């Protein structure tokens, strides 16, 4: 108070003058502060746009693939020298030679081992499997000549998509002059076409970018989400019901509450360590199985489900419960017949958001060995499998230029999944939300 006493009392006019003198700088500060705020918001929005533009511009081309048309002569002398059409002989025949011959027919002047190898390298090494499959399906085509479209090699594909740097001295380039020559010649003959990249959605992982797809990873992710939702949703809802409706005020319940809040903030990699130590080393469950991944993600998602379900239950007004109890329903009946149906949309919304987080989770899956190179699409949750985010991680590490494009495309697929899940959650909330 002493400070106030020492000050002289000012007249209103003096006060007014003082305030007005300071107003300009105060308003300037106000505008500056507002500018900082707007700059922050704009920077965030700009980042969002930059991010999506980068991903889409890198990834959109992966949905298309360059194909090369070759006239393959199914020469019986190469495929089936014995003439017995024995399936075993057919399956182990030298199909590579067919591709090579067909390309050599197109470019008769090419000779020498090195150049021939470059020439055959124009077509994906997966062409061999296509040919074998065709012959195994219908041995009658042996002896005929057919025009077949093969996926081009990833470098050729990149070249036609304009993603291969062809300026500068040849020595420094990955894509050499003779490759450019072959590619241009093939295109001049109308043997190059860009088509929708079906392989990307139907194949498993591969060392060759043009043969690599997300099917195996996506299947693994779906299995994992199924396991997660089957475990985390019922248990989470049950836990939430107990804590909101039945829990007495005692120590054990306090401990449970503190635990749930802490678990929600434990780093996901710690859950991976738990999965490794408990599920794999202690219970002996198989490594890399999507079932184990689902278990780990379920434990990780459960706190989220519990917290969301609790707020959904809390939003049901007490009058509903009192009315049910007043009509003679027991507490369990009140919950199952009245509270639960009213809270269910909110619970589902929370669960879907939790699942969306689980779908994008990678770190715990690395711990339980889901980083394997998976070619075959898993058939059951116990098969070794990968997951979409893990596939992204693996491809992001690959040196081939074409994998950058495919990684971005896989990211787009993953983001599309997440967007759909979030949209469903938002729709559920707006459709069923009640204001009491």
């Amino acid at each position, binding site marked *: 108070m002493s400070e106030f006493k020492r000050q002289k009392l000012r007249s209103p006019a003096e006060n007014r003058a003082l305030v007005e003198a300071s107003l300009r700088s105060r308003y300037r500060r106000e505008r500056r502060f507002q500018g900082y705020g707007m700059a922050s*918001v704009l920077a965030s929005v700009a980042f969002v746009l930059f991010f999506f533009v980068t991903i889409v511009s890198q990834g959109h081309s992966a949905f298309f693939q360059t194909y090369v048309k070759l006239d393959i002569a199914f020469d019986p002398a190469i495929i089936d020298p014995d003439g017995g059409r024995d399936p075993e002989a057919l399956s182990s025949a030298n199909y590579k030679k067919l591709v090579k011959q067909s390309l050599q027919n197109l470019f008769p002047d090419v000779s020498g081992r090195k150049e021939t190898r470059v020439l055959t390298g124009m077509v994906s090494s997966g062409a061999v499997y296509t040919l074998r499959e065709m012959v195994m399906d219908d041995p009658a085509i042996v002896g005929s000549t057919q025009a077949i479209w093969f996926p081009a090699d990833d470098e050729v594909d990149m070249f036609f998509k304009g993603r291969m740097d062809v300026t500068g001295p040849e020595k420094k380039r990955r894509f050499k002059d003779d490759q450019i020559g072959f590619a241009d010649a093939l295109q001049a003959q109308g043997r190059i076409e860009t088509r929708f990249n079906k392989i990307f959605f139907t194949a498993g992982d591969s060392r060759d970018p043009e043969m690599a797809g997300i099917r195996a990873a996506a299947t693994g992710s779906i299995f994992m989400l199924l396991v997660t939702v089957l475990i985390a949703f019922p248990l989470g809802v049950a836990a939430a019901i107990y804590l909101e409706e039945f829990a007495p005020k005692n120590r054990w319940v306090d401990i449970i509450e503190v635990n749930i809040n802490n678990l929600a903030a434990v780093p996901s990699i710690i859950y991976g360590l738990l999965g490794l130590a408990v599920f794999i080393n202690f219970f002996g469950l198989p490594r890399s199985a999507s079932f184990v991944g689902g278990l780990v993600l379920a434990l990780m998602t459960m706190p989220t489900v519990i917290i969301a379900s609790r707020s959904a239950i809390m939003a049901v007004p007490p009058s509903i419960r009192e009315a049910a109890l007043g009509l003679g329903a027991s507490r369990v009946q009140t919950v199952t017949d009245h509270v639960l149906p009213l809270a269910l949309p909110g619970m589902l919304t929370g669960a879907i958001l939790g699942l969306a987080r689980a779908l994008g989770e990678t770190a715990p899956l690395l711990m339980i060995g889901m980083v394997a190179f998976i070619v075959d699409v898993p058939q059951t949750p116990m098969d070794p499998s990968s997951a979409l985010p893990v596939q992204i991680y693996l491809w992001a590490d690959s040196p081939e230029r074409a994998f950058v494009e495919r990684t971005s495309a896989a990211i787009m697929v993953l983001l599309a999944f997440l967007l759909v899940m979030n949209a469903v959650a938002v729709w559920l909330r707006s459709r069923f939300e009640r204001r009491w």
Partner: protein
Amino acid sequence: MRLSTILLIYAAILIAGYMVGRRKAATIGFAPGARTMHSLPAYHGYNVMLWGAIPALVALIAYFAFGDAFIISTVVNSLPEAVRSLPESQLHLIVNDIRNVAAGNAMGGQPDEIISAAADQLNSLRNQLSIGLGVAVLALAAVGCGVGFVRVGADARARNQVESIVVFCLLLAASIAVLTTIGILFSVLFEAIRFFQKVPLTEFLFGLNWSPQTAIREDQVGSSGSFGAVPLFTGTLMITGIAMLVAVPVGLMVAIYMAEYVSPRVRAFIKPLLELLAGIPTVVYGFFAALTVAPLLRNFGIDVGLEISSESALGAGLVMGIMILPFISSISDDVINAVPQGLRDGSYGLGATKSETIKRVILPAALPGIVGGILLAVSRAIGETMIVVMAAGLAANLTANPFEAVTTVTVQIVTLLVGDQEFDSPKTMAAFGLGLTLFIVTLMLNMVALQVVRRFREEYD
């Protein structure tokens, strides 16, 4: 007996129990001149079912928990004395051989006689035990249902019994949270303790040199393996610090601007955009950091004459900051909105401008909540894995230069545990040591943060 058959018959018995129990209750209850039943018929049905279900379930659980161990110990006990006296680890290998042979995938030719005999014994024991299990489960289920059925009557308090079991099951579900924490603690602690037996705790916490390669042969050069984790801690702190430098000011300003300045229409447009950031998986941020931000930074460094590593702490930190940003802004938004309107009105009434009100009234009032949110964000940044795995380095550098590559605790956990590993080497155990450190640090941060936030909420509720 196959397990699936047992489970199928078990389920059939339970359903039958429900039906007959319910029918009996209905016949008693709806008989002319009958007394009022205490419980509805369906509850009697459920009660009969539970009478049959629970004892059999206990038997099933006991089988899964102890059956295999029992069989193995019986088989080991009947092995010849010479084999049994082998040291633990060799015995373990033999048991594994026996299991493999019993499962029919003998590796490398003809197994020797003792093992194949033991495998036969194992298989026959398994057979016997599964038959025993089947008989026990089905008998328990049938007898239990029978007992329940006999107890159906007008006075039986079936509903109360069923409901108390339901509530007990709900309690069990809630207790899983505690179980998970215990599971985490033990799985990490167990290996970590073994690690600290080999590497003293003081070396781990204060050692300046981290190179976890251990010798494959005794006489190998330069592979002593040193486990001083200080470079990892400083690396983690540096990246976290950079992330916070980005996320806290920007996130806070975004929250303030959105809460105090922006019109509802603009808000409805921008908010979902920012929430989009929160929904992006961290592996995507990692990809972005490694393939877009890092080259940008390096080229920028070349332009201005700085040497910026392509795995610099700066790149990882920047992207992590963007990842954390929506988290900070959404928590701050909540907290700022929780400040009572009266405080704002009072400040405006005294002639303060908007920014003065925010700086001198709202922020001080919201400070505890914001600090709590920042602590939570720090714990997130410390535990964040994918961004740093993809964008930060592997080599443990003790440096304060953000343009150099540093490594973090989580990166090391991943590199130590991914790929082929032997479970007993100090290398893998070191990962659990790091995991324990990470768990303790984040747990403490969370506890403090939650406490602070709760205190704040109570103040204004």
